[in-house]
Each structure stands twice: as structure tokens, then as C-alpha cells.
């Protein structure tokens, strides 16, 4: 088992290297697709849902990638004083308007990847670019919904949502108008004057969503935004996210450990390796839009992609699990 995995990882590394080279020569979209051609030999056969040569959201000359990670590596000083590599040699490109989901086992480095893109953390190595510019500090037009609740507990729902516009120099009344609009759009009309502790967990997530969306980000980073919610609320929030996102043309990077969620939402799903994270494989999700978040998971196409991606993800989850049980023992 371990042997085959290593062999597998080896081939993947080669593929990746090759892809990196191609990225430098051609446009990234084509490069990714050709890499997927190679990967097809590795993936289990017989799944038709994910054809490598699909038309990715019209990749023409005007769609330069809005997010570009090339060989990005992030190291932290670990608690014991050593060096811990959270992200290693990670390549990922996201086109404008594209919805990319990132799945991977727990602790592999998904949040760290987002913190690189958001400019909150600089990479130790490699290139991170947003809108074609190297990331130094927080790039313009980026919204980030954090994994942990980041709603200000001392501000009401409305005042929390006014934060962004106020920070960006809007007048009080303008900020309030825009905030009121967004509070309504995420379905919290009537709760404007509530404090966060008076809301349910799902409602707090809606506040965070409105707080992020009111700035009308061109790039939206979301870190397991719905993982703390119960299944029904999560389904509801997924549907609402799709509704709010459609037509905005914003690029989304959506981190989750829920593969079903990833497939319901995304155009492409990037599977991460067990930590240190790097992109193992990227799958196209060829499901029609607009999607009904509740219905689509019952279709056979969905189940086909699910099986294919899960095949890839399962190995990494297995590795993480073994490591953890090793640590516990």
C-alpha cells in the first residue's frame, strides 16, 4: 500500500513538474488540461463525467488567471522549535469567474493556502500572484470568509456589515444603505439590530457572508464556511451561495473537507495531498448550471464524479489517518 502510494506520488510529481514547465510556455488553462490528459492514465478508468478536454469557462486571451500559485511553499516554525512545512510546491491557477473547490484531509494546509492568496502570510518560496501582480500585502478586490467566526460581537448585524464600506471610505449613510441591502439579500432582514450572540450559528455565517460580499470582491476566498452547520442549513446556505454568486463574475476558492459540497458548488475541484499540501489532481465538474444544490447530488452524473474524485482523495485521507493514529498510539 505505502509502496504504491509513493510510486503514485512520484508519477504525480513528475506530471506536476511537466505541467509547471508548460504553464510557463502556454496559457495555464491549456496546460492544466493537458496535464489532466496525463493524469487520466493514473485515474481509475470508466468514469465519463470528468472528461479532460472540456471547455473551461471560455479560456480566451482576455481571461488571464486572477489567482496564480506557482511552486508556492510555506514553512512555519513549529512549537518544538523545528520547521514545519504546511504547503509545499503548490501550483494552482484560478480564472476570473471560476468556482474552484479545494478538498483535502484535515490539517494538510488548505487554510494556509488561502492565507497566501489573501496576502495575510507571505510565501516562503515560490510565486503568489493575484490579478497578475505579485502579492505583497492584501490585494485589492479580495474577500475572505474565515474558518473561525470573525463577526464582531460588539456590533449589531447591520453595523457588522457596514464595516467594509466604512473602512473603504464610504459615508455612514451610504454604508448603511448598502449594508441593509446585503443583510436582506442573505436573508437576515428584520435582524439588523441583533447582536451576534442573539443569532444562531447559521445566521452568524450569513452575517459573515454579507460582511464579505458587501465589498463586492472580484475574488472570494472561503474557508470551510459551512462546516459548522447542520446538514439542512448547509444545503440551504450552499443554494444561497450559488444564487448570490451567479452573475457576479467573481472567482471563488472554496475550501472544504466535504467532497459533496465541493462538487455541488464548483467548476473544478483541486484535491490536496496529506500535509504538506500540494495539488494532487484537479478535476473538472461537468455539471450544468444553474444547479439546484439539493437536487443535483442525486443525479448519476454527480455520483460518477464523486466516485472518481473520492478515489483520489481517499488515499490522502488514509495517509492522514494513519499518521494521526500513529501519533495517538
Amino acid at each position, binding site marked *: 500500500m505505502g509502496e504504491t502510494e509513493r510510486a503514485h506520488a512520484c508519477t504525480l510529481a513528475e506530471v506536476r513538474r511537466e505541467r509547471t514547465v508548460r504553464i510557463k510556455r502556454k496559457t495555464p488553462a491549456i496546460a492544466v488540461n493537458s496535464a489532466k490528459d496525463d493524469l487520466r492514465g493514473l485515474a481509475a478508468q470508466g468514469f465519463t463525467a470528468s472528461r479532460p478536454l472540456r471547455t473551461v469557462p471560455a479560456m480566451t486571451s482576455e481571461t488571464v488567471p486572477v489567482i496564480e500559485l506557482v511552486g508556492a511553499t510555506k514553512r512555519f516554525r513549529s512549537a518544538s522549535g523545528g520547521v514545519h512545512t504546511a504547503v509545499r510546491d503548490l501550483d494552482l491557477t484560478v480564472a476570473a469567474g471560476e468556482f474552484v473547490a479545494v478538498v483535502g484531509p484535515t490539517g494538510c494546509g488548505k487554510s494556509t493556502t488561502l492565507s497566501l492568496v*489573501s496576502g*495575510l502570510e507571505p510565501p516562503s518560496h515560490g510565486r503568489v500572484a493575484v490579478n497578475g501582480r505579485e502579492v505583497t500585502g*492584501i490585494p485589492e478586490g*479580495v*474577500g*475572505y470568509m*474565515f474558518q*473561525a*467566526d*470573525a463577526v*464582531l*460581537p*460588539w*456590533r*449589531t448585524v447591520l453595523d457588522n456589515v457596514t*464595516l*467594509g464600506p466604512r*473602512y*473603504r471610505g464610504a459615508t455612514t449613510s451610504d454604508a448603511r444603505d448598502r449594508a441593509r441591502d446585503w443583510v436582506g439579500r442573505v*436573508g*437576515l*432582514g*428584520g*435582524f439588523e439590530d441583533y*447582536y*451576534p*450572540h*442573539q*443569532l*444562531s*450559528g*447559521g*445566521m452568524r455565517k450569513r452575517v459573515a457572508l454579507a*460582511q*464579505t460580499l458587501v*465589498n463586492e470582491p472580484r475574488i472570494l476566498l472561503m474557508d470551510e464556511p459551512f462546516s459548522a452547520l447542520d446538514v439542512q*442549513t448547509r444545503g*440551504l446556505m450552499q443554494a444561497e451561495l450559488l444564487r448570490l454568486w451567479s452573475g457576479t463574475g467573481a472567482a471563488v476558492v472554496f475550501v472544504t473537507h466535504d467532497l459533496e459540497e465541493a462538487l455541488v458548488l464548483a467548476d473544478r475541484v483541486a484535491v490536496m495531498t496529506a500535509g504538506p499540501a500540494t495539488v494532487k489532481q484537479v478535476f473538472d465538474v461537468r455539471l450544468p448550471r444553474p444547479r439546484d444544490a439539493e437536487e443535483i447530488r442525486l443525479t448519476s452524473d454527480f455520483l460518477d464524479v464523486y466516485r472518481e474524485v473520492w478515489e483520489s482523495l481517499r488515499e490522502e485521507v488514509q495517509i492522514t489517518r494513519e499518521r494521526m493514529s500513529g501519533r495517538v498510539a
Partner: protein
Amino acid sequence: MSHDVALPGAAAPTDEDLAVSSARAAVRRRKLAVTGVRLLLVAVWLGSWELSATYLIDPFYYSKPSAIGGKLVDWFTQTTAFGSIWTQISYTLQEAVAGFALGGVAGVLLGIVLGRSRFVADVLAPFIKAANAIPRIVLASLFVIWFGLGMSSKIATAFILVFFAVFFNAFQGAREVDRGLVNNARILGAGRAQILWTIVVPSATSWILASLHSAFGFAIIGAVVGEYSGADKGLGLLINNAQGTFDSAGIYAGMIIITLIALVAEWLLTLLERRLLRWRPAASGSHDVQI
């Protein structure tokens, strides 16, 4: 659009009203019982003191409630050895409030600045520790020499006591600001000043308010001790004079007035705290109606 909880203002069914009113009644009964027992305790305490001072112990040393009451009536209806009692109270109060305000503002400002700047905090840490270790109450004597017998020496003493109490809490509060909140604000577009004003200050507020309660007590102690060390007016002087004339009832009477002032201040601070910390969930065990 469906919501996770019921909409506000939905009509409540009648048995819910009943539950609320019966819960309210239970709370009222409890409050009454608590107040009753408290009054009883005070009565027993004062009564036994009065009795034992009359029959068992020497009231010259220990005084007794009736003598203290008499002294208070004396002070308020006639005058003290240094003029009207109201002059003394207002004098001490002015010193305490001035010291409290100045010390509070300085403590909050410096605490937040140092809490947000690792480098300055690291540089100043040993000096602050040393300054905190000084028995500050002794400074009262020094301040009388520096600033004379007037108000300023007492304000200085109150200031020093308040400053350190507030400073350490503000420092801690500014340090423990949730990094997630700061990062979120940065992503939303906040600059340094905006982060300080909208994130750091509010999240340090509960720490600061907690310290203000004890700080006003310190301000009064500073003022009274300052007056003790040398003054021409004030409650501290009154107490000092009572000590000089072996008037134990006078000492108690002064103490009672100071205690009342401190209680009123405490009440005002609690109101302020409620206003500023409205956003917090009600602490369990408060007098909220719970069903």
C-alpha cells in the same frame, strides 16, 4: 426565505405569557427574601455592637453605632472642625475624580499603545515591573513635598494608584485581541488606525471596565491618604483629626461617608458598563427572567 429561528415579534401563545409571569413572580419573591435577610443581618450586627459597647467593651476604643450616628448628624446639621462637611466631601471628591480621570486616560492610552507594539513593550517591561513594585502609597508623602498641601498632591497620589490598576488591564486587553478579528478587518480594508479604533479598543473595553471598578476605590484611597499626609481640607483630614483627638466615632463616621461615596461611584460605573457592554450575552445567574 426561511430563517433559522422564529421571526421577532411573532405572537406568543398564552401559556408562554403565563410561564413568563410566573417566572417573574418567582424572581420577585427571591429578591424580597434576599433583601430581608440582608436587613436582618445588619440589624443583628449593629444591635449586638450597640449592646456589647454599652455593657461589655469600652466604647472609648470601639465606639458604638449610636455615637457614630450622633457624630454624623452633628457633622451634617452643624459643622466640622474645618468647616461644612459638604466642603470636605466635595474637596475629596474632586481630588479623587480628577486623579481617576487622568490616571484612567493615561493608563488606557499607554496600555493600548504598549499592548499593540511588541518592541516598545519589550523595552519597557522591566521598568514597568519595577515601577509597579514600588510601594506607591509612600509616594503620597513625596507628592506633598513636591506639590504642596493643596489639591494637586492628592490628585497625583490618586493618579499613580489608578494609573497602574488601569494600565495593566488595558495592556492585557490590547494584547489578547483576537487575531482573526484583526485579519478580518484588514481584509475588509481597515488601516492601522481603523483597526485600533474598531477592533482593539472595543475588545479591550471589557478588560478596562473591569479595572475601573477597583480603580475608583484606589482614587479615593489616594485622595484620603494624600490628605492624611498633609492637607487643609478633606475627609482624610477629618479622619486624621479624629485620630488625633481619640475620637473613634469620628473615624467611623468618616469611613461611612467614604464608603457611601465609593458605593455610589460603583453604581455609576456599573451603569456605564451595562451601557458599553450591552452586546454581551447576559451572564448566567443574573436576574434575567429564564424559563
